[in-house]
């Protein structure tokens, strides 16, 4: 005999339960190389799902997890999780096995099992580990002791849409994710997800220009999602003041932010979370910039803004208002006192129209007008008001003038409605409120008497060739002008920056007054000085300013750490669905109209500054959010939240399933078992009556790793009265199993002891046919269970129905002959053992014989031997066994396998 010839041999163990683990460890300890296939994410099998083991009431996890760790550390064992054999071919004495490896979409070399991916994942699914009684995320680790302890992503299909919304959003808000949360009623989670990348959710939920909606792929089917309105809904469900402050580790670095607008404050917010000491300076008396002083109350209530800024202050940011840089403090002084500077002074100056009579009293620029109104100054507009311009500021001015009591308000715009830069819904609201727009008109002169305005002279325009912005340029029509009598004119033609103060540190702003930066990092030409927002771009949108602030914060942190200032990874441009894709999706998802945002009536709203948009009801919000195509699929929606949260970059959505061919000298099968599904036993009401559960579900309910953390609860309350029914799906021809499942009598006794240990004075009944306590220490355990007060009733209940309080069990007690009616809170069905799902396929690819019930046929004198030479079976694969018997059969299978490969 060639001594130790088995040491170069390879054995395949199929199944990672206690049977497979035993066999694998024994083989490995003899020097054999073992490949362990596990169909699920972790080894541990059924045993790791148990709370305790009988008769010693040892914690199953405590007993088994060291063995699992042993497997993972054993050099001779390689675990292939999410894997199963597809085909087996005999090759000499051994086998060639084709193995299917399902991908985790996780680089297991990088994953540290920290769990942050799961925390953020917005897709909530049922946990198989918890017998579907509790939730898990689409990216998950089934239980803390899992081996391999690596996350997996449960991706069932590709996302039907392109998630153009996320790509279009300057701050890449996880739209898919928060819509998924809202559609399933998790409003706070939705809020937190929005908050994760946006320090001003209540602002963006109201006044964002929503580039996401413009590109929403559902819009190609019917209507785009109401993404902004749903954000507003999520925001309304939650009080910012109750938000907890995260743990912050201080860095002792000081950063100055110039300008308390959205860019400056967003930057300050992110810097504070990084632990830097941040001071924000602003010239105006209150922080908020344009949000505070330009946007009218009816669109963005000041109180909402104050709360958002309050949170930023709670993060430790100091806001010093009423301090103008260049006047109150010199920028050079700030540069000396701080480690870095972010300039975000915006574009606070209204641009003049440049026509005669602009200095007349009664002509005011829009920004000044709005600032005055928002500062609470008493502003009087005339009877007839004309607002010059077509942007959002112009619309805001017009609607504000209306609310201030002006009889007639007109908007004068030099192009047509199609070219108006104001948001579509704002223009609609404006028209609804009775404000007229005079298109293709421009004033050329204001006139009046005694320095007061009395009218303006206008000319007609027509559209010419497109200009640099792509809009058609207005060209004056030759001919006489005409007069419009007005007593107030508000000009809203654009804004400019004020950047002269930067010269103190040697900066030279561009001709138009903007500061030039690297748009990807926010860095200016001067070390340690960054800028962004309107001061760089000229007037733009809130969300762009937030994005600029965040970009700068990231760069500043890198700068303060002394690292290279690299831009964040660029995102792809928003994509459209192809026509075929649209057609396919239309078939799958019938058309659903967008739910309009409820608003106050026009008559009511024009009289005051109360908020116009009322907000969705929870039902409306859920219905609207569930229109999102991404949320319609099972499993991972590829929203990218896990990628954002994973610190080690372990998520890889490009990974693919693999099929590999491997050769083995022998195979040990340990496929394990499933449990009988008692739904077909209608008389017990499983699945229809609340409180009727299976033994395995009870196991998860009482386990600390279970959905309740180990508290035995029913509808949130501790049940007191329990009824156990044994032999459900065992010793029962009707259910197709004449055999005894060998474990249910004892696991019932174990459950009773768990209840007796944890619940005070419970009432416990057990229905049985024979109590089969045959193993070592089992009979004694059964005796103790009876002595501790469990009432054993010989007889099987006829039916379970709903009772006044709880459930009513009708049972004939065969010992006394009487029919008893017992009221209980919870019924636990001791369901029997069934062959593992998929065992048929396994046997067919290996040409294995099965017995009448479907278990793998083995021989009682050569217990692990199957009909195929070289393939051995252990554990429940060949019939019901308890844990010690499974361990013994695992060892036996290993021994026979050793003998076979040593021949």
């Amino acid at each position: 005999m060639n001594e130790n010839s088995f040491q170069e041999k390879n054995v395949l163990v199929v199944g990672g339960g206690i049977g497979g683990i035993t066999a694998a460890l024994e083989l490995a300890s003899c020097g054999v190389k073992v490949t362990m296939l596990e169909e699920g994410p972790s080894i541990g099998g059924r045993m790791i799902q148990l709370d305790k083991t009988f008769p010693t009431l040892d914690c199953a996890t405590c007993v088994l997890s060291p063995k699992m760790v042993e497997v993972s550390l054993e050099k001779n064992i390689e675990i292939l999780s999410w894997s199963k054999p597809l085909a087996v071919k005999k090759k000499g004495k051994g086998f060639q096995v084709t193995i299917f490896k399902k991908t985790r979409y996780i680089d297991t070399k990088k994953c540290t099992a920290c769990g942050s991916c799961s925390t953020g994942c917005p897709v909530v699914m049922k946990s198989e580990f918890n017998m579907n009684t509790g939730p898990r995320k689409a990216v998950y680790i089934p239980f803390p002791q899992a081996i391999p302890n690596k996350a997996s992503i449960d991706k069932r299909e590709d996302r039907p849409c392109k998630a153009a919304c996320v790509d279009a959003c300057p701050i890449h808000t996880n739209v898919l994710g928060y819509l998924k949360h809202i559609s399933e009623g998790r409003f706070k989670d939705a809020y937190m997800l929005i908050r994760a990348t946006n320090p001003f959710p209540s602002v963006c939920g109201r006044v964002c220009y929503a580039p996401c909606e413009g590109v929403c792929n559902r819009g190609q089917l019917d209507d785009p999602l109401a993404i902004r309105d749903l954000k507003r809904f999520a925001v309304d469900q939650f009080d910012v003041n109750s938000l907890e402050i995260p743990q912050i580790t201080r860095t002792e670095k000081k950063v100055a932010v110039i300008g308390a607008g959205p860019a400056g404050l967003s930057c300050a917010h992110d810097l504070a979370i990084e632990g830097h000491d941040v001071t924000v300076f602003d010239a105006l008396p209150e922080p908020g910039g344009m949000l505070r002083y330009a946007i009218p109350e009816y669109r963005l209530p000041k109180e909402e803004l104050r709360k958002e800024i309050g949170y930023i202050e709670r993060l430790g940011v100091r806001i010093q208002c009423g301090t103008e840089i260049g006047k109150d403090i010199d920028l050079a002084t700030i540069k000396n006192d701080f480690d870095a500077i972010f300039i975000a002074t915006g574009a606070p100056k209204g641009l003049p129209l440049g026509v005669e009579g602009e200095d007349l009293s009664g002509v005011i620029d829009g920004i000044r007008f709005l600032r005055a109104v928002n500062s609470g100054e008493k502003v009087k507009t005339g009877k007839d008001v004309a607002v010059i311009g077509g942007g959002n500021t112009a619309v805001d001015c017009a609607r504000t003038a209306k609310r201030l009591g002006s009889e007639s308000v007109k908007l004068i715009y030099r192009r047509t409605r199609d070219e108006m830069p104001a948001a579509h819904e704002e223009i609609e609201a404006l028209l609804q409120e009775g404000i007229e727009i005079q298109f293709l008109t421009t004033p050329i002169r204001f006139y009046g008497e005694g320095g007061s305005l009395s009218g303006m002279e206008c000319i007609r325009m027509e559209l010419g060739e497109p200009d640099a912005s792509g809009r058609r340029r207005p060209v004056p029509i030759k001919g006489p002008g005409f007069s419009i009598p007005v007593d107030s004119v508000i000009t809203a033609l654009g804004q400019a920056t004020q950047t002269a103060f930067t010269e103190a540190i040697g900066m030279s702003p561009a001709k138009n007054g903007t500061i030039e930066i690297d748009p990807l990092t926010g860095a200016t030409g001067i070390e340690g000085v960054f800028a962004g927002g309107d001061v760089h771009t000229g007037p733009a949108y809130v969300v762009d300013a937030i994005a600029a602030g965040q970009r700068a914060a990231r760069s500043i942190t890198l700068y303060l750490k002394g690292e290279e200032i690299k831009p964040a990874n660029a995102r792809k441009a928003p994509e459209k669905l192809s026509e075929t894709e649209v057609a396919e999706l239309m078939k799958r998802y019938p058309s659903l109209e967008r739910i309009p945002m409820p608003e106050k009536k026009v008559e009511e709203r024009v009289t005051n500054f109360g908020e116009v948009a009322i907000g969705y009801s929870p039902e409306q919000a859920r219905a609207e959010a569930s229109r999102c195509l991404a949320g319609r699929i099972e499993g991972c929606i590829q929203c990218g939240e896990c990628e954002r949260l994973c610190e080690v970059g372990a998520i890889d959505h490009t990974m693919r399933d693999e099929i590999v061919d491997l050769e083995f000298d022998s195979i040990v099968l340990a496929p394990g078992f499933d449990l009988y599904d008692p739904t077909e036993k209608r008389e017990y009401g499983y699945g229809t009556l609340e409180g009727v559960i299976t033994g395995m579900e009870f196991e998860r309910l009482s386990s600390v790793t279970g959905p309740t953390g180990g508290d035995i609860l029913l509808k949130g309350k501790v049940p007191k009265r329990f009824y156990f029914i044994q032999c459900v799906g065992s010793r029962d021809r009707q259910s197709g199993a004449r055999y005894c499942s060998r474990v249910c009598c004892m696991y019932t006794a174990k459950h009773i002891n768990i209840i007796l240990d944890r619940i005070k004075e419970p009432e416990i009944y057990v229905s049985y046919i024979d109590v089969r306590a045959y193993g070592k220490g089992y009979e004694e355990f059964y005796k103790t269970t009876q002595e501790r007060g469990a009432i054993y009733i010989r007889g099987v209940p006829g039916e379970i129905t709903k009772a006044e309080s709880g459930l009513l069990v009708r049972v004939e007690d065969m010992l006394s002959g009487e029919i008893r009616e017992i009221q209980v809170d919870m019924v636990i069905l001791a369901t029997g053992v069934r062959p593992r799902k998929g065992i048929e396929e396994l046997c067919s690819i290996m040409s294995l014989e099965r017995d009448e019930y479907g278990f793998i046929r083995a021989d009682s004198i050569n217990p692990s031997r199957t009909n195929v030479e070289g393939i051995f079976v252990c554990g429940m694969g060949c019939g019901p066994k308890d844990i010690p018997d499974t361990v013994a059969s695992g060892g036996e299978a290993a021994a026979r396998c050793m003998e076979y490969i040593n021949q």
Partner: protein
Amino acid sequence: MKTGIFICHCGHNIKHTVDVKKLSEYFKKIPNVTVSKDYVFVCSEPGQDMIKDAIEKEGLDRVIIASCTPSLHGPMFKDVLRKSNLNPFLLRRVSIREHCAWVGNDVEANTEKAKRLILAGLYSSAHYVPLEEKIVDVQKSALVVGGGVSGLSAAIFLSKMGMHVYLVEKEAALGGHVRILKDVWPAGRDGKGIVEEMAGELEKQENVEIFTSTTITNFEGFFGNYEATLKTPEGEKRLTVGGAVLAIGFSPFDPGIKPELQYGKDKRIITTLEFENNSDTLRLPEKPRVAILHCVGSRDEQIGKPYCSRVCCVNALRVGNALKDKHKESYVESFYMDVRAHPKGGEEFFEDTQEKGVLFTRANVGEIIPTPSGVVIRGEDTLFGETFEREFDLVVLSIGMSSPKDCKLIANTFKIALDKDNFFMEAHIKLRPFDTAVKGIFIAGSCSGPKDVEESINHGRASAVKLFGLLNLGYTYVEPFISYVDPKRCSGCRMCEHACFSNAIKYDEEKRVVHVEEAACMGCGLCNATCPSSAISLRGYIDPMIDDEISGFTEAI
């Protein structure tokens, strides 16, 4: 002294309820602590590299890892030290996950406790010295005690794998109880045929020596090199073996212990084993009336047999079946408590037996009264709550399994433990059902509790593969935690010799002091605790170490 302290967050596990930052900051200020760091996963590769770096750069001579339970990742962290050229016994593990973080949610209290535990570890580890694990050669030979199906299975496997096997059977023939079974259920085969086939397979092997009519008189030594003394018909024989599988089976329950059964006093009252062997010679009438009593010698606390014997229900069914097959017109009634037809195919067998006409009565049998016309059974029907009295021509007692007669002797010889019912005790009832507390000594089959044929075969091979795994390495590490004697303090009282479990203490008649046989010492510390003159210490666990560890818990901080 340069100690490095590494505190693990264990992801959220520890960090969530223990302030790890506070801990690492605190220990930075303690004397003799050169490095104090916290890290998200000390067990991860970067975590291990961090330790290695610190050892190499800072010249650490003690490493404390405050993380999960020491039994987890123990060998791995020892390896980290080895790879950094530091003796692995200079590592101290402190469990702040199981002992602090998982205990409750009170961050302050948990952190305080963790601080104490680490401090205790720090004080204790100051006394650590480098220790060496010795390597000892292992004999590639095995002793198998018992020639029943379990012992035969073990012997066949070991010999086929190339081990030299000594099989010892106290009876003249191999085969144990299975040899006398006529019809082994569910195989449907003659027991003699089965065991002879197995014995034949074993005898074919060259490296096997079988000793029948032989007993073991002595067994000593240590794993890898045990010395066994056999008493064979040819005289005494001494063997050196690496390890042993004990498969000494069971003894059938003797119903004579229960006088109310009248067993032995009337020939019409027999056991299942006797029925098995003499069913042809029983002089039964044409339509015999037969009673079968379950649970004789099982589930009976009064006679000290509280356990279920696991196999007797099926044995009772076999009797009923055999009677019905032979005498169609017979009246067969089985008196039972529960019918435990649990093995594979058992339930179907039970149903078939009922269909053949065997009656099953749930009853407590009170007494058996032999009369000239028949044997009367008096008892209580526990289903109907009525007493009954019925007359039979034959009463078959389905007897249980009792612990083997030699259990105490063998347990003493091999220094293994017995359970409350005098069966051998396994190291862990669930996951280590073949292991004992003594390295290299395994137990198999019904000597650790009642088992049927299939289960005994499983046990035989499963225990053998475990022993093989150990022996096949060819060497073993001897843990360095062993006792040593200060001969100057030893008074030669020899109390330690009695305390020692593993015969490791040897007395020197000449010098009148003891010394420790290092390879045999298991490091249990019993001698250490017993010695009245504090002459014995345990390497790696010396008294000052423990004193200082305690002061780490108690001192004011």
